[in-house]
């Protein structure tokens, strides 16, 4: 055992002395954790970004009726951010703030600006309420709202539905009054008493909200809030762990090519001690990489109010399971590739593809992820690692919750290790 530890420590010393190690294990992962966290909805102000649909509104009427129309729209879809009215206001119960994303210093917009914002997908729709909306409704006259969207903008029709429903609610009394006027004109010589009675009755009925929607959410935790750094820290950490551990395959092949392994084999150590020492070093480097990633996460978390769960031991267990799996894969990998260049290229390719497939770059729980991508994710060890990390970080899970994922990772690592030890030859 001492010999295994000695080989591992020597390997670690050599690795950590290299100036590139600081860059590859600290600087680059930290940069990617930060950026991928932002891409996953982490707000720079410490809040997690939530789903919002920006709609530019030009209210030329400024009447209680136009205000009521807008309020109805908000009630119909809580994701709507009506700009500029809602800019800077709280966004639902998320704790986040609505952001209309105006260009710096540009608050007075003209028609071309609104069109540009639609074309650039900053906004989903543009609504113009004409002056005289309230007066037109009171006088039972037609009035036209302008609804503008860019072609093929996702979500514009859901905004259109909200506008329609809100407009219909607002116009309910007018619709009844208009029909009463037509009936009175045809059958009652334009009896205004009848028209007024019909209008008053309609107003009374609409005030009682004839058909409401009782919207209930099923019990259970939601996975749809933006994960931000909770996604990027374990995700990028795992990706760099794979790179770090897989580099061991390159080193093994390279050392065999330069006869270092063969020379080591002439010493009083067994081949299994050599391999054990090399793999132990890679395992420790992998765990060190995780420690660095989570340290970066904790610092960013302090600044942005993000937590990584309450069970650090469970996190360490998931990290160790993944690193063990990677260590087994590394040794197996070293037996199937022929040159160190081939090993380096394949390691890069594998880590850059298995990571996104397995959910290291974005959450696979997002609603729009195609089912077959979710099914495909099970071929990637990242899937099991991320499931384990997310259980602890987002759902406050413990060992019971992470055990299935960890068992699969450890079993996979064992299988790789079993086949690798049968194939690997020092010389």
């Amino acid at each position, binding site marked *: 055992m001492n010999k295994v530890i000695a080989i591992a420590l020597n390997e670690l010393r050599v690795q950590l002395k290299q100036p*590139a190690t600081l860059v590859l294990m600290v600087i680059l992962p930290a940069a990617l954790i930060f*950026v991928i966290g932002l891409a996953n909805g982490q707000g720079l102000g410490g809040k997690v970004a939530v789903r919002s649909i920006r709609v530019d509104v030009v209210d030329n009427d400024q009447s209680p009726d136009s205000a009521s129309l807008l309020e109805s729209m908000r009630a119909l879809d809580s994701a709507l951010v009506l700009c500029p009215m809602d800019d800077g206001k709280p966004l639902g119960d998320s704790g986040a703030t609505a952001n209309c994303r105006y260009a710096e210093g540009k608050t007075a917009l003209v028609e071309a600006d609104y069109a540009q914002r639609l074309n650039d997908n900053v906004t989903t729709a543009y609504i113009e309420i004409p002056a005289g909306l309230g007066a037109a409704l009171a006088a039972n006259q037609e009035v036209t709202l302008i609804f*503008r969207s860019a072609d093929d903008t996702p979500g514009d*029709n859901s905004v259109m539905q909200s506008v329609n429903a809100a407009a219909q609610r607002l116009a309910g009394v007018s619709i009844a009054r208009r029909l009463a006027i037509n009936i009175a004109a045809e059958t009652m010589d334009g009896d205004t008493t009848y028209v007024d009675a019909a209008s008053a009755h309609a107003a009374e009925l609409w005030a009682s909200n004839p058909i409401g929607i009782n919207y209930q*959410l099923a019990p259970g935790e939601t996975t749809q809030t933006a994960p931000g750094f909770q996604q990027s820290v374990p995700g990028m950490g795992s990706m760099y762990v794979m790179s770090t551990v897989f580099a061991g395959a390159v080193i093994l092949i390279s050392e065999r090519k330069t006869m270092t392994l063969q020379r080591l084999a002439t010493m009083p150590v067994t081949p299994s001690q050599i391999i054990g020492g090399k793999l132990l070093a890679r395992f420790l480097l992998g765990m060190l990489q995780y420690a660095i990633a989570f340290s970066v996460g904790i610092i960013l978390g302090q600044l942005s109010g993000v937590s990584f769960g309450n069970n650090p031991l469970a996190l360490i267990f998931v990290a160790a399971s993944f690193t063990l799996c990677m260590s087994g894969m590394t040794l197996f990998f070293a037996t199937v590739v022929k040159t160190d260049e081939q090993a380096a290229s394949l390691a890069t390719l594998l880590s850059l593809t298995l990571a996104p497939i397995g959910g290291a770059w974005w959450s696979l729980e997002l*609603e729009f992820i195609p089912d077959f991508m979710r099914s495909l994710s099970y071929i990637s060890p990242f899937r099991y690692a991320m499931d384990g990390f997310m259980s602890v970080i987002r759902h406050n899970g413990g060992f019971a919750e992470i055990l299935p994922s960890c068992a699969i990772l450890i079993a996979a690592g064992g299988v790789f290790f079993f086949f690798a030890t049968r194939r690997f030859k020092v010389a």
Partner: protein
Amino acid sequence: MITLRKILTIAWKDVRRTFTDRNLMLIMLAAPLAISTIIGVTFGGVAQGAAPVTDIPVAVVNLDEGTGGTNYGNIVTGILAPLPSDETGADPLEQTGNFNLDALTDSGIEAQNFVCPQSAEVTSGGAMQTSDASLDELLEGVRVTTPEEARAGVESGLYAVAVIIPATFSADVGYTPTDQTLTPTTIEVYADPNKPIATSIVRSIVEQVAVRLSTGNVTLSSVLTPVIPPANPNPLLILSVAGSQAFAQGISCTFEGVGSPILIDQQTVEGDEFVFNPLVVIGSAQAIFFALFTANGSASGTIDERKNGTLQRMAITPTPLVAILTGKLLSTFLNVLFQLFFLMVALTLVNTLIYGRLEFIWGSNIPLVLFMLFTIALGTTGLGAITAAASRNSEQANTFGSIIAIFSAVLGGAFGFQLGGGFQYLSVVYWGSNAFNKLANGNNDVLLNALVLTLFGAVTFGIAFVIFARRLKD
């Protein structure tokens, strides 16, 4: 002339060596292509402008017992979960006016069929709007017997949403001569908290149907209640009102949602339409990102050749040092150019496979696309060359190269996010992918992008050349 031939020979030898190295191909082509494909497949549905989710599993429980021959619950159910025989394309709400007329008069007055006025250009407020996708594509409705079963289905993930219509729905919301009171009622929408998009779509559809049913019945009640006072109904007046043309047409159109005084003029913005295709946006940025590695690796190969003595051996041949260096740097440029070209072609093929239509995703201006490819290759090569030239050895060059490439990718949006604040302008990835995005969207205004990339490439290339030349002389 001979010197030029030597330059081309040196360059071509290096290019051939690069493109016959299978390991390098994995990094240069397979990796960016694989990442772009994964992103394209994952986010393609959202990007193509269709509804982000389709075939939403909806459980509909219709407990409505109906009233006076009308069952509004059946109408809501028919919209959300049509039976195969219902799928005629007709709006079930169109028939609701007739239901009410028949139930109301019960005296042989025939409802007349009117065509509700609807301008071709103006969408009347209240008209049923669903989505780009039809309701058939949006919803996968299932009729379920009990609320418990539907709720359990939502909780188990079988359904995204359950819509539960109460037993007294028609009685509460429907207006009949015998039951003139409208009692506020509710439709329950029981939703999976992890499917907010699906929930929002279903809720919106239910809301719209509810508003139209409310409008119809409120209007019906409003125009009839004054002539049918419970204590003293006036049969002649009732017949007169209910038999009028204004009433028949008005009520029918009200249920169709066409009688609103608020019209909505639905327009599409003029100007350049921006279509988000992840294979263009992320794919081009990833291609340039990996091209930076190629440029750096290829340029730092010169350092390795010096270390290994290959360059020194070349220098003793009758070939000027400038020709050797020019050949080496030209090969770096060509490697990057060919890599970008292959990736663009490959991404087009991937797009064809994913979306099932053969289309050149980089826009219609092919000469401009090729010109931009040239300028991007120049800018990328310049950055890679100067990084290698400023490094003491190839290990250092690789380390610095990785840092610069990743920061350029981060600032330039290769990971789907741009920091903004002007930082993106520091990245060749931004200038390149921005140009490709513009061209893909039919916007040929890429002069600034070309100028920046060309100037940047020329300056950095020149500086790298001078540094390499000095080193080789030493």
